[in-house]
């Protein structure tokens, strides 16, 4: 959380995560280079630089495919939450690999000639009016710029200063970047290499990402449909206290379209907004750990009664007033300003007592 800005707030999981991903990239590029140099007929050795350009390009595209798969996979199973936790580091690793691919390609194919390399990138293939002849390099360059902007603004400093909605919108550009890269590959490598393995792998990658997003989107749509925002005024009935799993929450819709997460803990009931201050993570899918509501995405914490992160952190989220009447839990749909202390509803041992 953001009580102060450090380059990276390391912990053991992040170190293991980053090391693993770096090792995976080295394994991929190493095996690619070794096989690429050895499989050709005698005297037909591939250029190591061209091989490196290709290995790094395929690695970057594969990493981006994995990144885009993590979100929906984590919606389908909590076992993928560890991959989601440090996804931004994976994004920066992906940008680094893409930068190496871009730098080597610019050096090898566009440098040392009568044109500036960046000018060459745009004019050496002038067939902008042809689909099969289109300069695929330009598509890759635009995608690279998007990855650069995302990597440069990946730190929580930018998340706080740009605001979560703007930051999120900016980082949704990963989808256009991915589509640009699919065309970069299709109009480049796939039009040069003869093997059918490449179009099949590219199509499978794209189709997998599309299918995962469509399926999880459909699931969310069904949930949304089942819990449409209430139009009624007044307090909203949540259910019996025992209907809320201990140290967890249920989620309810609100008249204005927001969602409230109603937590049960220590024989008490408290309610907060369902959106984490960090990246709009679903707080209602989290747990109460060490007395704090803990977001399932990145572990940000808030006290249930006032929605404030425990010291030294200072983040605040909106709270809601709750009460128990006749053995039923009710929530006032009007949010309190972020960080407002509320009185938890106390669950009596026998029956319920109004708070």
């Amino acid at each position: 959380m953001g009580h102060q800005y450090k380059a990276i707030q390391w912990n053991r999981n992040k170190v293991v995560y980053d090391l693993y991903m770096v090792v995976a990239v080295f394994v991929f590029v190493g095996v690619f280079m070794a096989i690429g140099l050895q499989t050709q007929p005698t005297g037909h050795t591939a250029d190591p630089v061209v091989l490196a350009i290709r290995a790094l390009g395929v690695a970057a595209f594969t990493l981006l495919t994995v990144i885009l798969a993590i979100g929906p996979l984590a919606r389908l199973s909590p076992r993928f939450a560890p991959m989601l936790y440090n996804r931004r580091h994976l994004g920066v690793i992906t940008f680094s690999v893409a930068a190496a691919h871009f730098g080597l390609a610019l050096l090898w194919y566009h440098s040392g000639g009568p044109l500036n390399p960046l000018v060459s990138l745009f004019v050496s293939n002038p067939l902008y009016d042809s689909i099969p002849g289109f300069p695929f390099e330009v598509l890759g360059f635009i995608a690279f710029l998007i990855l650069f902007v995302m990597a440069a603004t990946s730190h929580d400093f930018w998340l706080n200063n740009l605001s979560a909605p703007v930051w999120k919108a900016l980082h949704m550009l990963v989808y256009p970047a991915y589509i640009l890269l699919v065309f970069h590959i299709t109009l480049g490598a796939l039009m040069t290499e003869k093997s059918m393995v490449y179009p099949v792998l590219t199509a499978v990658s794209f189709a997998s990402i599309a299918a995962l997003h469509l399926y999880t989107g459909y699931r969310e749509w069904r949930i949304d449909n089942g819990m449409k925002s209430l139009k009624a005024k007044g307090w909203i009935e949540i259910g019996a206290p025992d209907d809320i799993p201990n140290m967890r929450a249920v989620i309810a819709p609100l008249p204005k379209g927001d969602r409230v997460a109603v937590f049960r803990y220590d024989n008490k009931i408290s309610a907060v907004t369902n959106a984490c201050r960090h990246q709009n993570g679903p707080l209602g899918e989290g747990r109460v750990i060490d007395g704090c509501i803990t977001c399932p995405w990145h572990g940000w914490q808030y006290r249930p009664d006032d929605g404030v992160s425990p010291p030294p952190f200072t983040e605040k989220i909106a709270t809601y007033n709750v009460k128990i009447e006749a053995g039923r839990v009710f929530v006032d749909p009007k949010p309190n300003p972020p960080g407002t202390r509320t009185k938890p509803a106390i669950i009596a041992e026998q029956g319920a007592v109004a708070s």
Partner: protein
Amino acid sequence: MTLPKGVIDPEPKTPDEMFVGWASAPKVDRRFLLGALPLGLAGAGGGAWLIANELDDPGAGVWLTGATHEVAGALVTDPYPMLRLADPSMPGGVRTVLIVAQGKCTSALQLDDQRGRPVIARGVLIQRKGRQMLEVPLFQDDWLSPTKMDMIAAQLSPPVKPLGAAHLSGAIMDTKCFFGVMRPGRGKTHKACASLCIRGGIPPSFWVRTKTGAEAVLLMTTADGGPMPMDILPLVADPVEAAGEIVQVGDLLQFRADVAAYRRI
């Protein structure tokens, strides 16, 4: 448990333990990761093997970096820079070694003083299937020195033997990359590089296959034997066809056709 309509329990089937990044992973996640992480590494290696194993043959060219070769012969610049060596075993009695500069700026080489004279050139050899090219430094002038050597007439004016009109299809390459600097030095992924090379004065060649499937590389010139103009650049590396004339100049095959004769297939 019965929740009112609209209220949901988000994770009714999951255990109470939850992965939190800053804490130790729950057992269930550790078990999953212990299985998934080795699989991920195996997938990375296996995927790399599959993709690299399917790459096209890059061709037979070599770029003998690390060793400087000396070649003595007559310096010729028309239509492109080259050395002609007397060699009775070759057609026309001469063996041609094309000259290119490091990088992609061959047209910047200062050759006027030695044109038509016997010289010794020092550089790196690039060769493909018996054809040779010498890559020389761009910003030094000690790679080229005059020498005393008896020359035969064919070194400056080799016999020109018309082999007839031909309608060929193939692809336009930059000779340097195709001979071995880039492997592969063809196809759309190499189009921009080939275009930049030819723009910089590296000779274009027409890569065709004969009826028997054999590879043939013909140095491209205009219909009157001059260097190709830059109008050819948009067609580089694409599948093209052209009607022209094949001419043997010494040991080199030239394909003579103006840019207008080329058509993208």
